[in-house]
């Protein structure tokens, strides 16, 4: 039974991937990609990665899909012009051949994988109690491979600076996106009033539960950011000015606190990002609490895009 389900999921996944790649209409392609992202979450569940499935559904399918849908709306006029530039049959044949060669090489690698498979799980489990968290993924993210997570937080901030730097000069320091105006008694404004309290509770629960169960700050931050986007789109609140000191402080506080804890480790544990005995859980919690506002702000502002109005004041 499960094999049948798996086969159906794989078939659907490949079909959707092909569809998004060859569909003539960009909107259909992006819509296909959103469904593809949701299907991918199922794949992660089958691959025993509940944390990954949550991240994929929230960020891979949800946020990326919304971002691309927003872009499609603004790119409508340019689609026909580039269609005239589409590759000829020769290029398509060569591209198809190249893709087949790459796929074949990967398949060969998969079939020649070593047995038994190399794994770090036996190393993670005995050391997990020392971190004070029970979810091995959280343990890896914030203790064993904390440096990766630190660099990731910095990459997010750099990406946001990158997005902001595409602003026209006159809009620098201003607010991103359009000022949404909707019917204050309409269904969107209603949803934007009813959903956020629920979303905020779920977001904070995921954040807290992430220590011992699937979940964590990324999935939590995505839900909180989505609630903020909803409030913005319903016209209940405007996007923040990017020269707002509170916004900018919130963006850097996570990486700064992370680096501070890391430097503290130099003295107390003798190594950068080391945690002294018995202090792992409080320090991990400090990092997570400091990272949460950073992640919410960065994810929402990446969705908002570069500032476009109300420049330097």
């Amino acid at each position, binding site marked *: 039974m499960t094999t049948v389900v*798996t086969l159906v999921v794989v078939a659907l996944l490949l079909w959707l*991937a092909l569809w998004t790649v060859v569909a003539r209409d960009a909107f259909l392609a992006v819509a296909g990609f959103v469904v593809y992202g949701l299907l991918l979450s199922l794949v992660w569940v089958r691959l025993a990665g509940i944390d990954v499935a949550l991240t994929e559904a929230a960020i891979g399918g949800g946020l990326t899909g919304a971002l691309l849908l927003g872009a499609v709306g603004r790119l409508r006029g340019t689609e026909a012009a580039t*269609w005239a530039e589409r590759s000829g049959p020769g290029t398509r044949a060569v591209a198809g051949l190249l893709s087949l060669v790459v796929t074949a090489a990967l398949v060969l690698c998969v079939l020649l994988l070593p047995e038994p498979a190399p794994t770090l799980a036996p190393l993670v489990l005995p050391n997990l109690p020392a971190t004070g968290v029970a979810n091995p993924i959280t343990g890896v*993210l914030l203790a064993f491979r904390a440096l990766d997570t630190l660099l990731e937080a910095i990459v997010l901030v750099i990406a946001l600076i990158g997005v902001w730097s595409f602003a026209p000069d006159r809009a620098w320091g201003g607010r991103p996106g359009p000022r949404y105006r909707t019917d204050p008694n309409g269904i969107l404004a209603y949803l934007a009033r009813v959903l956020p309290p629920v979303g905020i509770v779920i977001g904070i629960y995921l954040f807290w539960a992430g220590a011992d169960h699937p979940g964590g700050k990324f999935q939590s931050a995505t839900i909180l950011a989505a609630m903020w986007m909803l409030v913005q789109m319903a016209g209940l609140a405007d996007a923040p000015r990017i020269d707002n000191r509170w916004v900018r402080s919130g963006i850097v506080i996570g990486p700064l606190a992370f680096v501070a804890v890391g430097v503290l480790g130099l003295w107390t544990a003798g190594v950068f990002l080391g945690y002294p005995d018995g202090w792992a859980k409080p320090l991990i919690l400090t990092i997570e609490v400091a990272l949460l506002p950073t992640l919410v702000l960065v994810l929402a502002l990446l969705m908002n895009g570069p500032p476009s109005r109300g420049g330097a004041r």
Partner: protein
Amino acid sequence: MTVETLFALAACALVGIGLYGLIVQPHPLRKLVAFNIMGSGVFVLFGALAKRGAAAGLAADPVPQALLITAIVVAFAATAVTVALLLRLIDVSDSASLAEEPPAGERP
């Protein structure tokens, strides 16, 4: 065939499909979607390797899984930068063309 091998093979196909779209589709947004498909293929392959590493009572190796979470977030950040770049390109040039010269319109 185990679940992880099946998904690993599907992932190989996803990389190929994404690569094809990346080359063939002329519109930058379509290239971006295709690139994301290709990236997700790499992620699924890595996830299948994590599942193969199930040991010590864990259903999968948590180290690659944690790196996957990082990878998905970074991929989103890169996509956001690319979308912003693309929208700016259209604001400035009124065209999404990546061709060296704008097409004359009567190309074969």
